[in-house]
């Protein structure tokens, strides 16, 4: 007897005969979160060390906390891969109803930061339920649409929209406009892929535009928030800096920093804007300005390329999925990443309004990092179970 360890037979067995999902992991997709979050860690360090040093705090403070979030994120990703996603397909309603009380609860007992009441304080850490809600709503809308695939009539569409709108309303009530927009985009994408009829899509789009207009005109938003939303439209470079609002100033500084980077950047830890801290929130929402300044066009374009690679792999997973639910969930995740990346980098470069959305895997902030890892874990889950 000869033990066959390699060769055509073994390969064949792995392709078709072997059903263990671990043999079908998308390694490119698996590696991307590590690569991007590693770069993010470096950028968080670069953008905060000078400020922390100046303030007598360990220069590794933010890096350590972000590193811990990444480790937790990896663990969560492993869990998201291990549990068959089809369980979520069957239990989406349960997941959905556990998210709603979390979102409502944060309004009552949550902590307020950056103008949004969106955090639970847990000892020295903060937990932001809206990050989980993004995934939960994707799962719920996908689950519902999967249930009624090919038969998304007006009534069922209303139910699907309601599934998305209720958490959106709760997130909006937390004053977290950006996350509400992400949920809307994700749900919308899932509905498009699920087969929403063109006339329904048109009506929904009109409703959405009306709603956004109403929010802006009605004065529901604080002035500063409105200012952040509309600030990117009027960027008259002629206006003297003294006349700029705080928003214009933020964008202007971020743009200056990126422009200063040029083709190959000023070098790691060498960005004057970053090191002197003139771009506000540089380790969180405006972290792309550090990449742009210190690593230049080469670094910025590479990072965008990494996100494009991530988008492509997710898009590929949705095509390879063995069931429709997998396709829908992966498309929702893809929409979540694509929208956040575009919105965040776009606002840093002055082509999108400022909404306070983090750059996935890059921005300092534990909940978002963990949720991003979980989202990729879910897509990997769909991919590796495409034969089982």
């Amino acid at each position, binding site marked *: 007897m000869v033990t066959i360890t390699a060769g055509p037979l073994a390969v064949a067995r792995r392709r078709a005969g072997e059903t263990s999902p671990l043999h079908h992991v998308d390694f490119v997709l698996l590696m991307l979160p590590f690569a991007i979050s590693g770069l993010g860690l470096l950028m968080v360090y670069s953008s905060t060390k000078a400020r922390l040093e100046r303030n007598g705090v360990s220069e590794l403070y933010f890096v350590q906390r972000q590193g811990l979030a990444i480790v937790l994120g990896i663990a969560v990703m492993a869990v998201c891969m291990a549990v068959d996603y089809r369980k979520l397909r069957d239990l989406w309603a349960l997941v959905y109803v556990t998210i709603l009380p979390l979102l409502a609860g944060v309004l009552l007992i949550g902590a307020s930061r950056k103008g949004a009441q969106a955090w639970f304080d847990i000892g020295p850490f903060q937990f932001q339920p809206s990050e989980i809600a993004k995934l939960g709503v994707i799962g719920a809308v996908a689950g519902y649409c999967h249930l009624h695939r090919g038969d998304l009539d007006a009534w069922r569409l209303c139910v699907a929209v309601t599934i998305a709108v209720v958490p959106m309303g709760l997130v909006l009530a937390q004053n977290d406009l950006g996350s509400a927009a992400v949920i809307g985009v994700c749900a919308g994408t899932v509905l498009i892929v699920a087969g929403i009829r063109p006339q329904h899509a048109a009506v929904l789009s009109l409703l959405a535009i009306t709603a956004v207009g109403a929010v802006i005109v009605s004065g529901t938003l604080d002035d500063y928030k409105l200012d952040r939303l509309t600030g990117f439209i009027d960027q008259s470079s002629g206006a003297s800096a003294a006349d700029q609002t705080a928003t214009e100033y933020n964008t202007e500084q971020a743009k200056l920093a990126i422009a200063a980077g040029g083709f190959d950047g000023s070098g790691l830890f060498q960005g004057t804007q970053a090191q002197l801290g003139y771009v506000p929130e540089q380790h969180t929402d405006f972290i792309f300005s550090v990449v742009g300044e210190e690593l230049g*066009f080469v670094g910025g374009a590479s990072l*965008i390329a990494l996100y494009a690679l991530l988008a492509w792999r997710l898009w590929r997973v949705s095509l390879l*999925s063995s069931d429709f639910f997998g396709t829908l969930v992966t498309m929702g995740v893809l929409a979540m990443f694509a929208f956040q990346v575009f919105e965040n980098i776009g606002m840093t470069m002055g082509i999108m309004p400022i909404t306070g959305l983090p750059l996935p895997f890059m921005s300092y902030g534990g909940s978002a990092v963990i949720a991003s890892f979980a989202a990729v874990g879910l897509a990997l889950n769909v991919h590796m179970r495409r034969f089982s």
Partner: protein
Amino acid sequence: MSDNSRVRVSIVGVVIVALFSALLARLWFLQIGAEEEFKIEAVSRATRIVQSETPRGSIYDRNGLPLVENRASWAITVDRALEPETRRVVLGQVAEILGEPYTAELLEENFNDVRQSPLKPAIVAADVAPTQRVVILENTEDYPGVHVEKLTVRNYSPEALLMPHVLGYVGEISEEQLAEHRDDGYVEGDTIGRAGVERAYEAELRGEPRREQVEVDPRGQIVGTPIDVDPGTVGNDVYLTLDANWQRAAVDALQQGIDGARLQRNDNVGERFETFRAPAGAVVAMDASTGEVVAMASFPTYDPRTFIDGISQVEWALLTEGAGPKPLLNYATQGEYLPGSSFKLVTATALTRYGIRGHSQPYQDRGFVEIRGTDYENAGRRALGQVALARALTVSSDTYFYTAGFAFWERWKGGDVESGLGLQAVAREFGFGENTGIELDERAGRVPDPDWKRDFATSVYESERAQQENSIWYPADNILMAIGQGDMIASPLQLANAYAAFANDGTLWKPHVGRDVRDAEHERVLRAVAPESLRTIEFDPATRQQMLNGFAGATASDSGTAAAAFAGFPFDQVPVSGKTGTAQVKDKGDTSVFAAYFPANGTQYVVVALVEEAGRGANVAAPIARHVIEVIVGLPSAATITIGDSGQD
């Protein structure tokens, strides 16, 4: 997957490709296409000079023990331009982070503290822990106008807390000081020495400030790295003449002496039972051969740490207001006291120099003497028998000196003004009635004479008649002055300096607490404070020998006034000489005084102890001085000092 779904998934893919392309295009435009435009904007900025203080020099004791150094204190500051409503909310949040004992009200109070510069963000809390600071750094958007700022504050070693009156304190420069020091490079908010060595050696302790030329945008924000940096220099270190161990002995002994006196019955108040109040006191120890002050304690004292980050109005009021003793006063240099019999050093010198009495000429002490119808008594009217100069000092015969004082007065009355005011002349020679010249705040005291009395009466009384009556230089004025009573007042430091001049055979030093100034980095001595002689006092050798004998007897002989306080003292090893003083103060307990000199460590030291309202010199001041002497000499010393209750004047 149905074809329909594939089409829809593809549509999403196309949209995403478009979005990423837009990002790349924008990035290209910003970094490659429009680079020049933004660069030009970055250059057109104004410049400004930003000045910041360099670390202040440290202060060490004579043996190099650190007393005052610097440490960082992380403070939370709040912008003054903040809307009151926003500020209220923000201060509430900050108070929540800080926890006990901070409340929003306390922070608001600190914010409004008038002693802070109105031009700079207000400091609301100091010494904030990293865990608390980081909360603010992490969430800057939720704390508008709140900043974390590094302050450099003075750090006091345990030994420094023993000598706040010598070290003094620093504070933010006041407007008047700023006007005065503007040319020396001071700006608003700078730290300046406001008392003690911190003020006296300000020029040495303060370094050259760091000056940075920076670019600012039209919003006043600093942009980019400084164009030009003058790093300045750190301040120099100051080494004191004080010995921290001896200072500890002085402080401990003074505290114990005061505690002990407060348990003793004050006999001066008649039948009523009352203990001595002993509200204040001082100890001075000097090297008689250089004028170096080696210990200087003052009671009551204060904690110099109160002044870190600015002292609150309440704390300031506690230290400076009210009828009681003032903790900020240095009673060693600013206390003005009747010296009592310790002043007999001066009278003894004067009466022999002006030929009132020879040093060996006997005098019969009957316990009192009647001069022009008034009885002048010894303490307790005790008859001391036949005394000459030495014994008169040993047993502290008042009548011996009363009569000398009267003899001077008679000469003055007879028209011999120069000789008649010989007592005053010798007192001034010993440095009384004028500042000693020490680096610290001090008071000159007073040597009373006919001119002073006339000026005083003129200024105090309204009517011409009263002015004239009170201008008269009576015999009593000179008689009482001869035993350190009447209107003669002096500081403990003046007394110590006078005894030092006697002990070293005639050199009156300018006392000093600074020993040298050194380079902070290399400990190289930049400037040594040299002994400075104010004048030389001529002593007749034979007379001085009698006086030496007299002072030696006061401690060592059985009949000496301080014999009880020095019982068991090893005079064979250390010949301590001294003089007690018990000054009677109208309506108060007696001032307890003791002055001593002794050889040790190859030089001569003087120790003066004085406690207000504490009884006889031998009972309280002498035991205090003995403890300090024992520590300086290196003799085994009891941990607690023994307060006497039977000593003589």
